[in-house]
């Protein structure tokens, strides 16, 4: 088999894994942001948001 095949395969696999990773992180972020927005919409907000208090150590 030609070397080109192996080169294409390695770049392909590397790209595939990287893209999966990027997509996963991106979709995960979108889902979490959506959940936060839903919670916000249902009237639950962070109590500490209006008055930012220093967390005790």
């Amino acid at each position, binding site marked *: 088999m030609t070397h080109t095949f192996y080169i294409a395969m390695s770049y392909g696999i590397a790209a595939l*894994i990287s893209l999966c990773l990027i997509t996963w*992180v991106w979709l995960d972020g979108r889902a979490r942001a959506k959940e936060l927005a839903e919670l916000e919409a249902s009237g639950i907000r962070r109590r500490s948001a209006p008055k930012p208090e220093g967390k005790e150590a």
Partner: protein
Amino acid sequence: MPQIAVLTKLTDLANPTRFLGLASRLLPWMAGITAILFAIGLYLSFAGEGDYQQGMTVRIMYVHVPAAWLSMMCYSVMAASAIGTLVWRHPLADVSHKAAAPLGAAFTLIALATGSLWGKPMWGTWWVWDARLTSVFVLFLMYLGLIALNRAMDDPGKAARVSAVLILVGFVNIPIIKFSVDWWNTLHQPASVIRMGGSTIDSTFLWPLLIMAFAFTMLFFTLHIAAMRNEIWRRRVSAQRRMAARMAGQTSEKGA
């Protein structure tokens, strides 16, 4: 309490809210830089000439070596975060090593797959128990173990602390594993194996390699920050849901 005052300051410096603000400002820039670096790196790696010995397969090196480098750097980042978890008990450190583990596993997988694809034309077989491949494989198993451990525990704080201990024990062990695998390898396979990316790399290969390594590193940090942000959001969501449940419980108790 001067001690507590100092701690409070430290927590303030990198509290999750501030981190989120920083992350949302940095992420577009980092993603952009990563994309540009990859464009340059990929162009250079395909424009360059092949090695007369290894032929065009030297191009596999441009993804293999950076991925292998990242697999180790990611573990070092996790070890540093683990110290942050255990010594300063910083919540961001917990988030950091939890978010890094899947990234490390993915880059290690890239290193393994490309190493294997490089091995086939070079050695005529998909897998050799070469010292480096073997060490990377062991590292991969350790990443998977850590991910499994994180998933197996319910309390995120406890999970972070326990996996931090394991990360550090593993970190101390990695040199020993590397040393023993090297030793074992020389014992069983006298140096007939072609060394991957030795120290004498021609400068025509060095530039694409360096830029690709830099691009992969930027990709890692971009993904790491994004994954940390996701994890913080996840915890924020769970805390708010919990609070909602408690508040509902309290009002219904009062009503009853």
